[in-house]
């Protein structure tokens, strides 16, 4: 861990977050935080609400109730210009990279600089190349996104996300669709960003190898509720059967309703639990 990092300083604070999608309740009273210089991994099965939570942390959605404070600011209260200032201090690497196909890799990375600063073109180009070096894509600035492999696209997306030295980096499923070797290299990159650039990094992933490799703390969601928040060690030591199943990738049988299961499989219901 770096000296000069204040581990109690909370960069993101979520309090009693409740959110709906239409009439469906997605997140139920979620509270968590992300601290300075840590890698926080958000895990959960499908339907757990982890993607929704991430979207709220990125201020892409408006919650039904509860507060989200990013770098001390209550997001819903910010005016346009203040929101833009805040956005310049956060970076997002989306699952598919979300690079703009009509621009080169370099132009993609320079885009936030182009739109928000008065920097000279030469400065922007040097900064873009610096970030490409950090993500191991040196020399790729003139290629088009369609010429890159999946792993390269993700790294280019990360370069764009960190071009303005943000305080918080969000990574949505960084390993999705990658083979273990490339995925592992990406994990290394995330660790390097935390250590060298002293970023707080929020990662949503379901790859357990990555979780064990990069997480400082973990938030586990289950059906819209927090199942666990704590350090990786605390996660491994958790007595909860559900969590241990999650960690060992066993099918989760803890609350299998046999009657309902048979009904689902056969399409026929039987009154009472008969001979189970």
């Amino acid at each position, binding site marked *: 861990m770096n000296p000069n990092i204040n581990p109690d300083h909370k960069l993101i604070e979520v309090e009693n977050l409740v959110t709906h999608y239409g009439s469906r309740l997605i997140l139920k009273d979620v509270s968590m935080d992300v601290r300075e210089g840590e890698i926080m991994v958000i895990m959960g099965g499908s339907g757990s609400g982890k993607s929704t939570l991430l979207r709220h942390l990125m201020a*892409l959605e408006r919650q039904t109730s509860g507060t989200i404070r990013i770098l001390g600011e209550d997001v819903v209260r910010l005016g346009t210009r203040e929101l*833009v200032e805040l*956005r310049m201090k956060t970076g997002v690497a*989306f699952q598919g990279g979300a*690079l*703009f196909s009509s621009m080169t890799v370099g132009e993609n990375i320079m885009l936030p600089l182009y739109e928000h600063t008065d920097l000279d073109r030469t400065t922007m180009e040097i900064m873009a190349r610096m970030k490409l070096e950090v993500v191991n894509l040196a020399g790729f600035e003139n290629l088009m996104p369609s010429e890159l492999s999946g792993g390269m696209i993700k790294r280019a997306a990360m370069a764009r996300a960190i071009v303005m030295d943000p305080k918080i980096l*969000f990574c949505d499923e960084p390993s999705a669709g990658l083979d273990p070797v490339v995925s592992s290299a990406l994990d290394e990159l995330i660790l390097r960003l935390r250590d060298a650039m002293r970023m707080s990094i929020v990662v949503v992933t379901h790859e357990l190898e990555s979780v064990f490799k990069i997480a400082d703390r973990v938030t586990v969601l289950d059906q819209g509720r927090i199942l666990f928040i704590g350090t990786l060690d605390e996660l491994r030591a958790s007595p909860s059967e559900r969590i241990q199943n999650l960690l060992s990738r066993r099918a989760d049988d803890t609350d299998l309703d046999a009657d309902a299961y048979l009904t689902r499989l056969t399409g026929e219901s039987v009154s009472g639990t008969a001979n189970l």
Partner: protein
Amino acid sequence: MASDPQYPAVTATIEKIGRATASAVEEIGNGGALIFESLYWLVMGRRLRQPVRLPSIFAQMMEIGINAIPIVALMAATIGVMLAIQGIHTLRIFGAETRVTIGIALSITREFAPLITGILVAGRSGSALAARIGTMKINQEIDALYVMGINPVRFLVVPALLSTVVMVPCLTFFSDIVGLFAAGLYVNAELGISMAAYFDEVREILTPDHLMHGLSKSAIFAVLIAVIGVVNGAAVAGGAEGVGRVTTRAVVQSISAIVVTDMIFAFVVTR
């Protein structure tokens, strides 16, 4: 109500119509809001340090305008000749075929050039716009713009809107010329009226407000094409197939809107 056992089919149908109307009104509302937001960015952009970008606008104008010239020329010439044929054929009944020029000139500049150009651009560029925005939405590129603090309306919609509003009237004017010329060739061939005489008569007939009638309509069509393209693209759901769906919808909706607007315009102006 739809589950009311007495009149299940009827109430279900009514509900369906109601829902469709409500969502259509919502989409028109979205479109209106988009126009206002675009105007906002056009005017205020420089002040808020987020100006509209010129190179991308230029590239779009090339694609919408210059690349459409061949097909617009073809269609305009064809329509021009068609109008000449029909006009002469009909007026022959009264022995008035030499008066055909006024009919041709007014129909082309007031109705056919803007209509055909609008429909062509809707099919070419309206669909392309919907497809582009739909694809971007699916790839989370719109989200990426948001998280980078870049307003998607300013970045995507305003350039598209500017490009169509400039290019469609230009293309319409171009098709006016091509259509009139092609019609003139037929008139010359069929009736022996010289091209010089034909064009003299055209110049006499075509007061500026006939031309403006057609060109201002085409500007409105341009707005419809851009806004309908964007609104549909942004409403995409469901992957690549979804993009195909919204593209088709965009073309159908913009052509319908163009034709309806054309009729309203004609009605209002001739009051």
